[in-house]
């Protein structure tokens, strides 16, 4: 877990919520997508507004202003903390205490964006993301916000369909948990890799193979219909 980017939020209920924070790469890509969206919509709109003459130019300048400063703010507030780019990358913004980002947080982090963009190519922002513990840019640090991976549907929550096999050896809780995790992932591993992983336990559990290990996993989570 030491290498994990998990960020822990303590709650009043006495449990810690765990969130994986998003690093430089997904955030830059999300920014790139957003920049493209802004650029394309401005290009299309400028062609339409061109027809309106000076009035069109006025509207166009208002739109640039709106997109430049409030595109991120409005999306973050009304779209569960994600601009279209962030949504595409599966990340979103929230307050550092795990609550949804509000007007103050979003506005501050997006106004201070201009400092992150200094002296060019978001250099300050990138350095801040790389140096700070929760991958925060300067705007995030000043506003108290973080960017995290939005939850994905957890896959394979049930071990494969193998009859439960009782465990003979005495195993610690962590070891038991490892076996259950293996059982849940076994269906997503290719056969050779699954056998290879199972073989690690050979010295501990005599002659164990993939199926036997999935069976152990089923036994550990509580299935008792023995063959």
């Amino acid at each position, binding site marked *: 877990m030491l290498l994990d980017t998990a960020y822990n939020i303590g709650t009043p209920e006495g449990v810690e919520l765990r969130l994986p924070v998003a690093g430089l790469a997904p955030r830059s890509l999300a920014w790139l997508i957003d920049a493209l969206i802004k650029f394309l919509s401005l290009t299309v709109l400028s062609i339409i507004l061109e027809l309106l003459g000076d009035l069109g130019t006025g509207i166009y*300048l208002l739109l640039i202003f709106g997109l430049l400063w409030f595109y991120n703010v409005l999306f973050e507030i009304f779209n569960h903390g994600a601009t279209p780019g962030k949504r595409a990358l599966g990340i979103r913004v929230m307050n550092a205490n795990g609550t949804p980002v509000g*007007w103050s947080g979003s506005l501050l982090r997006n106004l201070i964006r201009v400092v992150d963009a200094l002296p060019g190519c978001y250099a300050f922002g990138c350095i801040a993301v790389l140096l700070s513990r929760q991958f925060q840019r300067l705007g995030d*640090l000043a506003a108290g916000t973080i960017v995290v991976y939005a939850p994905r549907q957890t896959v394979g929550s049930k071990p494969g369909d193998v009859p439960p096999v009782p465990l003979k050896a005495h195993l610690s809780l962590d070891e038991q948990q490892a076996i259950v995790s293996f059982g849940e992932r076994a269906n997503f591993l290719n056969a050779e890799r699954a056998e290879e992983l199972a073989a690690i336990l050979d010295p501990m559990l005599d002659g164990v193979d993939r199926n036997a290990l999935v069976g152990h996993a089923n036994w550990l989570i509580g299935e008792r219909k023995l063959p």
Partner: protein
Amino acid sequence: MRQEAFESRHAATWATFETWIDALSTPRFAQRSEHESRETISKNFPAMYRQVCHHLALARTRRYSIALQQRLNQLALDGHQHMYRTRTPFLTSIGLFLARDFPATFRKEWRFMLASTLLFYLPALVMALAVVLLPETIYSLLDPGSVSRMEEMYDPANEAIGRERGSDSDFQMFGFYIYNNISIGFRTFAGGLLFGLGSLFFLIFNGLYFGAVSTHLTVAGFTETFWPFVSGHSSFELTAITIFGGVGLMLGYGALAPGRMTRWQSIRSRAQSGLPLIYGGTLMLVAAAFVEAFWSSTVWPPASFKYSVGAFLWVLHGLYFFLLGRNES
């Protein structure tokens, strides 16, 4: 308890909790019939949320599978987000904000407001004196091209052609002022994060620029076009710029003198307390752009009338910032 028994015992609870989360995440107008009413949900939500947190803690200590832990972590996190959401009544309380919070914050942070006002007007004054004594000083700040463009804009001689605009181009200028001025305001604020240096730069530079241009045009004898034009929106625009600069100085001060907090904590708390000033400054610049585009550009009112309006607005600003919101703060 084995994991499977645990899961089957609480599956119904978790499923209900999931539908509640779903119902609370959907906006009111899009509520679907299978959702329970908000009243029922909000009455029972806290108890159910605490139960889910309890289940998560159990699942961790009993080393249930990672997948189950992740699912419960997610449920608890979603619950946490709805439980502790703070809804800032941003648009509904705007009246209260204008009548109380904005001027009250302005007075509370008077040291920074004063500092940024001085940082803006003193350089302006120095530059004005310099231009009066040595007219060519203006070229140390602006290149000859921009000076002659500036002169052309306010030359009384071309008033007949250049000054009268249609409402279309008024709107174009409105868009331009919004885009340009508010962006400058935001940058003046954000630059403060660099230990105040950015705000310092924008304040002093804009002060010098303002002093140089206004004095140059006055000396050149364009008073009857320049001053009536700027008098209307000057109170909004100049005050707003010093406000943005002041909040930037607050950020910088927070970074330089964190006191007992960590540096970032101190910056965060300064930014939070300066936030009403940013909202207010933005509104003022919108007002300034409006006045500048649709009132300042008109040529029919006599200069004396425009000066009166300008002076009236300055007095109004003074009264607003010194009198409003006193009893509650």
